[in-house]
């Protein structure tokens, strides 16, 4: 009676469970997308439309005026040069911080995984503890140290802070990645005559592309979104975009320019957003790459 036995693909059915699942996913998507959507449409409306109070309505006369104003002429306290100043400050903080923290983290992870430094485990443990202590605890001591050194309130200072605080995570990331690479590969390279740097640069680093991508995403978003370090260490000349955004939103006199605030916020969020869109695929791949041998 083989004809009555199941054979071939199982028939697809829309079960109540499925419907519930889709409903949940849809709700979650709306929940997270709605604020973004409202910010976007509000930033495109002139103030007259916003005053009508219908925040979900599409703009009747869409205009980029608020964006232009947010970028170049919104007031952050006494200066009225828009958020562009903060944008370029953030870029100047971001680039060296990201490159240095990743480079140091990768070298650290490599040394800890392969070169059996005396006390490597203790060192690693200390680094890990560093990753879990709340930042606030360090603020005051660091301010004192940096003013003693005479670099407080400078670009060097804020970059240094980002590198220091990025190091535990970056080291952890790369150490774990390198721990998954067979030690024999390292041994083969040593027999072939590679030294500390040649093995790192010519064998290990080319294998680390997925991890480099993950590290870049983490550091770019983390450092771009930073507020407290920028406020504390960067000094008035180098305040990052997040701090200036805050100043714009909170220093309005008279009527609150919601469209400008929204546009400025969108501008500040553009970099992390772009990073996610461009590298989301790589991000997932990099995280998964840790699980299986490369």
């Amino acid at each position, binding site marked *: 009676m083989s004809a009555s036995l199941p054979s071939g693909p199982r028939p697809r059915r829309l079960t109540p469970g499925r419907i519930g699942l889709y409903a949940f996913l849809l709700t979650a998507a709306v929940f997270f997308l709605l604020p973004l959507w409202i910010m976007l449409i509000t930033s495109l409306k002139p103030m007259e439309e916003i005053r009508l109070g219908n925040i979900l309505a599409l703009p009747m006369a869409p205009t980029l005026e608020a964006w232009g104003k947010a970028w170049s002429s919104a007031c952050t306290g006494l200066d009225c040069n828009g958020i562009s100043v903060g944008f370029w400050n953030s870029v100047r903080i971001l680039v060296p911080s990201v490159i240095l923290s990743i480079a140091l983290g990768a070298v650290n992870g490599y040394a800890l995984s392969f070169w059996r430094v005396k006390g490597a485990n203790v060192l690693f443990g200390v680094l890990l503890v560093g990753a879990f202590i709340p930042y606030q605890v360090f603020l005051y001591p660091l301010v004192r140290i940096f003013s003693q050194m005479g670099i407080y309130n400078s670009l060097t200072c804020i970059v240094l802070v980002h590198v220091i605080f990025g190091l535990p995570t970056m080291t952890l990331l790369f150490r774990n990645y390198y721990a998954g690479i*067979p030690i*024999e*590969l390292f*041994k*083969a*390279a*040593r*027999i*072939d*005559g*590679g030294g500390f740097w*040649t093995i790192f640069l*010519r*064998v290990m680093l*080319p*294998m680390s592309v997925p991890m480099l991508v993950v590290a870049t995403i983490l550091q770019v978003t983390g450092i771009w979104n930073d507020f407290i370090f920028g406020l504390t260490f960067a000094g008035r000349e180098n305040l990052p975009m997040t701090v200036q955004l805050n100043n714009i939103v909170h220093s309005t006199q008279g009527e609150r320019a919601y469209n400008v605030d929204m546009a400025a916020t969108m501008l500040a969020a553009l970099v992390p957003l772009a990073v996610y869109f461009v590298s989301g695929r790589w991000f997932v791949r990099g995280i998964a790459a840790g699980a299986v041998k*490369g």
Partner: protein
Amino acid sequence: MSAVSIRDVSVAFEAVRVFDGLSLDIEEGEFVVLLGPSGCGKSTLLNAVAGLIDVADGQIFIGGRNVTWEEPKDRGIAMVFQSYALYPRMSVRENMSFGLRMAKTPKAEIGRRVAQAAELLQIGHLLDRRPDQLSGGQRQRVAIGRALVRDAAVFLFDEPLSNLDAMLRNELRVEIKRLHARLGKATMIYVTHDQIEAMTLADRIVVMRDQKVQQIGSPAEIYGRPANLFVAGFIGAPQMNFLNGRLEAEGGGLSFVAGTLRLPLAGYAFNGAPPVGEEVVLGVRPEHLALAEAGLWQGFGVDIVEPMGADTVLWCSDGTHTLQVRTTGTSRITRGERVGLGLDPEQVSLFAADTGERL
């Protein structure tokens, strides 16, 4: 002068001593296999020779030069690993030439040596591929090729065939043996837990267990005159039969006695004075037991018949003792048959029951 000389070497991990004062001399052109179960320290010893782990004590000489404190690259060695350890982001050609490029060898020389090694291993058509585009067997060929181009005096193999399937393993085993013959003066140290590889490849086998050398000898010696119970049991498949019994003097000579089984030991070459009256273990290989109607030992019945193609293994029992007997593959003996067993005292091994050492 030996090619490799390991003198009183001790290795320690943290506070744990892995070896204590291990010594071994290897002649030029010799193929030495370090054989033992996992965790016996054979790979550690190989890594110490390669300079990949530090020795806590003792000296290592390669080609008459004390290399105890030298970097791996300066020791004149090449190494092949179990996991191939090919550089994943480099082509086969780049993999093979990496060491030479590190040593700043002239380009023409690199090209010549890579081409030569590639031809020897028949991987010329793979030179521009990446390791992930190769099969396991091809990868290990490339790894061997990478070792070859180094022009080393000593080649170290760390279980190079263990990741391959059975057929490829046989194929590459033969290839390694052929390579050794062709290279002539190249000394090879080969670590494995596979006794077939050890028996087929080695000039000399070093059997190890628990970080101690159990026996050093030619494959024939190791197989024919195992130094202790561990070596006897570890080498040979199916395993050697062991019978617990006693050494007794009767008539003019000595006999092994285990219950109803007796074996007069005329012709057995004792290592020292035979311990008459003591507990001993008799070891006899399955192929040294012959089915004979008028055999010395009677009253055995066939329990299990294992046909293996070329030969057949019979599990024979007399109720108290079970013995494996190897017979021809064409044997027509079936389960339940009564058989007699004959054996030659010159081919058996006797061990002291307490120490396990050969008598």
